[in-house]
């Protein structure tokens, strides 16, 4: 099954950001959307999630789909513990017993079991982003939108978050739309990598990466080649 974005149009003060834009997203895969800053990537995610409305166009296959969102910032409630932050979004969905099982499972999977009673101001930036990853996966969504959640974190933290993310994703192979401007992130995580550019936004190229995620590293020749090609397109 694929989700289809058709004839998408969106303008801001006479500037046509999207003009008859088309894109296909495979279900149960990770689709990366790569592009320079300000090319409309976040706008696209916001339209998919319904935060903003498109001027025209349809999202086929998105009707009645439940969405979770991994933001650039962790967006945690300072006054709730790690546990409380995840519980906050699950309270209306699950009964207490089931909810507790789910929260325990995801907190453990992101390696924060010992920190479950900590408040966000007591955690590091990387730990807070782990909580938000756990929250996004604990929520029973069909689609997970990610808006550069690894931006601004140092390499080691980024690697550990990648690992946590892949571990969680392998559990239920959720449909992921991952927006980033970091070529390596896209190549290490994506099944499909769309490279966007220009205004109105166009798909410059789409890459399919079939190499198993666990075997990927930027030392691999195939990925190096794709990186070079993307770099040229974006230049």
């Amino acid at each position, binding site marked *: 099954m694929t989700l289809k974005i058709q004839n998408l149009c969106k303008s801001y003060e006479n500037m046509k950001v999207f003009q008859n834009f088309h894109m296909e997203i495979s279900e149960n895969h990770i689709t990366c959307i790569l592009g320079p800053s300000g090319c409309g990537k976040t706008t696209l995610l916001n339209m998919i*999630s319904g*935060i903003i409305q498109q001027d025209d166009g349809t999202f086929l296959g998105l009707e009645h789909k*439940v*969405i*979770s*969102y991994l*933001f650039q*910032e962790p*967006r945690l*409630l*300072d*006054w*709730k513990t790690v546990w409380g932050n995840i519980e*906050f*979004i699950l*309270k*209306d*969905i699950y009964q207490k017993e089931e909810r507790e099982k789910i929260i325990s499972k995801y907190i453990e999977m992101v390696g924060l079991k010992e920190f479950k009673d900590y*408040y*966000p*101001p*007591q955690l590091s930036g990387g730990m807070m982003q782990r909580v938000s990853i756990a*929250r996004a996966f604990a*929520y029973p969504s069909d689609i997970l939108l990610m808006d550069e959640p690894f931006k601004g974190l140092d390499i080691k933290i980024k690697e550990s978050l990648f690992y946590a993310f892949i571990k969680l994703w392998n559990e239920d192979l959720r449909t992921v739309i991952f927006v980033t401007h970091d070529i390596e992130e896209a190549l290490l995580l994506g099944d499909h990598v769309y490279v966007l550019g220009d205004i109105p936004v166009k798909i410059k190229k789409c890459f399919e990466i079939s190499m198993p995620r666990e075997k990927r590293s930027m030392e691999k020749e195939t990925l190096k080649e794709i990186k070079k090609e993307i770099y040229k397109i974006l230049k």
Partner: protein
Amino acid sequence: MRISIIINNKFPTILSVLTLIITWKILSEIVDQEMILPSPEVTCKSLIVLLKSKTFFKVVMTTIGRGLVGFFLSCILGLIVGIFTGVSSVIEKIVAPWLIIIKSTPVMSIIILALIWFETEHVPIFVSFLVAFPIICVNVSEGMKSVDQKIIQMAQIYGVKKWRILFEIYLPSIASFFVAGICTAMGIGWKAVIAAEVLSQPKYAIGTSLYTSKIYIETASVFAWTVVAIFLSFVFEKVIRILEKKIIRWRI
């Protein structure tokens, strides 16, 4: 180690209080008239007499009771109105002139009008309410406006119900603004309550006792009651700060 830290931290405060008392003592020696400026020891003696008197406890408790009833009412109404003004700019515009009028009216005008309108017992309650209400209301309103919209957006995407967004995001976000409002309001409020008592003369009240001491030219007693009033204000601010720490646990 720990004791030395405490001494180091408290030292400037202790030094400041000692300087105040010494200056007071020197001035009282220079003036040399107990009726105009009683010395710290005389004031202290007067305070002990007050503390031993049968009515002292009742007088203080009644003043506290009146102040707290007014504060409590202003907290509830200030919170409700503040939340609405924070959410809607239309409501804010409607409420703004009322708040400006209440804030700009001299406390003495409020007291005198209250004397005309209410029974003497209720005047200090009304005054403490009117003094505290605009401060709390404005603080809560500012708190509402400062709520991080990105957090609200997150809650909406995750389908959290509106009433839970109010109780679990908005209310905790405004907690520190609310507490700051109460502290400021209480600082000004106790003074206004006692001023109202001086004019309205309820049977048991710090204000009434102050006025009586003035009539009998017992200046030391006026000083002693003033010390009691300062202490009262100080204790309540401390209590609120402790409550704040208990409620706002997430702050490092």
